[in-house]
């Protein structure tokens, strides 16, 4: 194999003498720029290409030769594809003829002015947000309808599926949720006590832990964890079913994908998230109590007594009431984004990300609304 080379005789009748291996492997890409430059200077003059020295040719090499030839005069005369070539071997003839008929470039369209693109993106994003909000609301409506239908026709209920999702989204998350809330309880107690100690009010750490963990942290952190853990898995699972046409197959069989895929997941989280939130609340208290006992000299008995005395049950109720709402939001967003997957694996990844971001946003938004609501109620 020898390298691709060429030499040029300029003048009224320019002549290219091609030598060596005109293949990608022998460096077509290397000499392409030189040939282009030559082509620009000799436009519209009858060109001769001498192929005597070419010992190897591939489709790319043939393409470059034909392109050069056609740019210089013998433009697109398809009846004589070999016009202008000299000393072509039989084997190379076929390639040159083939290249002559297939000179097509897939040029990418030039990029538009950047400010236009920015404007377009802003507009598109705004429309998308509004559109998606509308779609999610109608999806929520559809899911609600299916759930009430399930109550009316209990035969439609899929207990196996619900239990399965409760296991993977609830039971399997017990350890991580428990550990996390224990640590959060401990951190709140510790940080609170450090600040409160300056006022000699260390003992109020008990109230701090009790109220914050029962009312907010337990349920909110559980929801955040489940959104990351189960919301994304719902989207990925339903999305890949969508890509493989499994959902179309269901519809063709008369199975409503909302019944088969969405309702069980929503029900599972409706039940699992409150259970996990309860666990989180209790273990948060335990974490706070442990720090109080070990580092702050508040013995467990005192911690228990103060918690019972001062922390009213209302705090606990306020926390737990939010849990099923969070569960519903996470499941619905996860399933909705899964159903929206179109076309490619790329879209599946994008939708999974959107699913987590949206459900986190929604959980925190709902939490804020609840806070305002309960404040107005003086609860």
């Amino acid at each position, binding site marked *: 194999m020898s390298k691709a080379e060429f030499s040029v005789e300029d003048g009224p009748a320019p002549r290219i003498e091609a030598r060596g291996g005109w293949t990608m492997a022998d460096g077509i890409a290397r000499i392409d720029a030189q040939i282009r430059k030559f082509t620009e200077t000799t436009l519209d003059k009858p060109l001769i290409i001498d192929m005597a020295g070419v010992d190897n040719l591939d489709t790319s090499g043939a393409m470059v030769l034909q392109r050069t030839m056609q740019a210089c005069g013998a433009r697109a005369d398809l009846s004589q594809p070999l016009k202008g070539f000299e000393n072509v071997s039989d084997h190379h003839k076929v390639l040159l003829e083939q290249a002559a008929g297939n000179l*097509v470039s897939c040029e990418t369209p030039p990029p538009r002015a950047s400010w236009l693109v920015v404007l377009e993106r802003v507009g598109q994003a705004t429309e998308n947000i509004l559109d998606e909000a509308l779609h999610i609301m109608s999806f929520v409506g559809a899911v609600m309808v299916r759930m009430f239908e399930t109550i009316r026709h209990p035969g439609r209920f899929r207990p196996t599926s619900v239990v399965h999702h409760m296991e993977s989204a609830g039971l399997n998350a017990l350890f991580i949720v428990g550990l996390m809330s224990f640590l959060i309880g401990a951190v709140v107690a510790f940080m609170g006590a450090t600040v409160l100690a300056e006022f000699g009010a260390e003992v109020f750490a008990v109230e701090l832990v009790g109220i914050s963990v029962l009312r907010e942290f337990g349920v909110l952190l559980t929801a955040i964890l489940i959104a990351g853990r189960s919301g994304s898995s719902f989207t990925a699972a339903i999305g890949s079913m969508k890509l493989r046409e499994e959902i179309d197959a269901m519809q063709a069989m008369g199975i409503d994908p909302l019944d088969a895929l969405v309702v069980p997941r929503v029900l599972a989280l409706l039940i699992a998230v409150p259970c996990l939130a309860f666990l989180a609340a209790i273990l948060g208290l335990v974490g706070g109590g442990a720090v109080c006992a070990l580092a702050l000299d508040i013995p467990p008995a005192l911690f228990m007594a103060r918690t019972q005395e001062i922390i009213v049950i209302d705090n606990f109720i306020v926390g737990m009431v939010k849990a099923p709402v969070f569960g519903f939001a996470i499941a619905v967003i996860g399933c909705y984004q899964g159903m929206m997957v179109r076309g490619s694996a790329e879209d599946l990844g994008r939708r999974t990300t959107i699913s987590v971001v949206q459900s986190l946003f929604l959980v925190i938004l709902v939490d804020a609304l609840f806070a305002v609501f309960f404040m107005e109620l003086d609860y």
Partner: protein
Amino acid sequence: MAPENIIEVRGVRNQFGTQVVHKDLDLDVHRGEILGVVGGSGTGKSVLLRTIVGLQIPKAGKVEILGKQIYPKRASAKEINEDIGILFQDGALFSSMTVAENVMAPLREHHPEISDELAEEIAGMKLSLSGLNEGVGEKMPSELSGGMRKRVALARAMALDPKILFLDEPTAGLDPIGAAKFDELIMGLRDNLGLTIFMVTHDLDSLIRATDRVAVLAEKQVIINAPLDEVRRSNHPWIQEYFGGPRGRAAQGSNLASQSA
């Protein structure tokens, strides 16, 4: 002159768990031929293809492509990958890239110095050679029909002018007209570019029209590897059923009719 072996498989054994797919399998592919590989479902046609290109590592045996060893000792991947192109069953186009970018991907990988213009021109020509129109380059793979995806995949497989083309059921899922055109395309490539083609197929029409030789996989081995007429004369019950069945006879009959016409 004895034909030159471009692929040589000797004594290959493939096994998944306790299930043996290939046992002492031998196969020769000659330079410049179109070899059709047939066999019942689950006889390991695709596994054989994957073994030859080095995607599946066999338990024992020897595999050589163009005199370079794939197994037991693997020659450098780059050296071999420039010489082979693979058309996977469903195209396996990269879904995050446009059609043109898909075809340019192997070019840019193996020739990083290539200019954008040249890459676009080469990609355009390969797409045109595969029978696709202008303008398809900007589309995403998910916007294409099954037949177009296969053509794009063929263009991508040919991007580097490979010496051997591996096709996994190239005509499956195409309509008869599209399938016939695909056969012609493949025969044209072989004639014009001197390619060797290894084609796993179930399409009897393609087998009859396009292949020079047919290898039949059964009983964990290649039981026969010969020109179609010779294969059809074999007494093996599976071969008899395959070519003697209603579809086999129909395909044969229509081909004879078109030849005499």
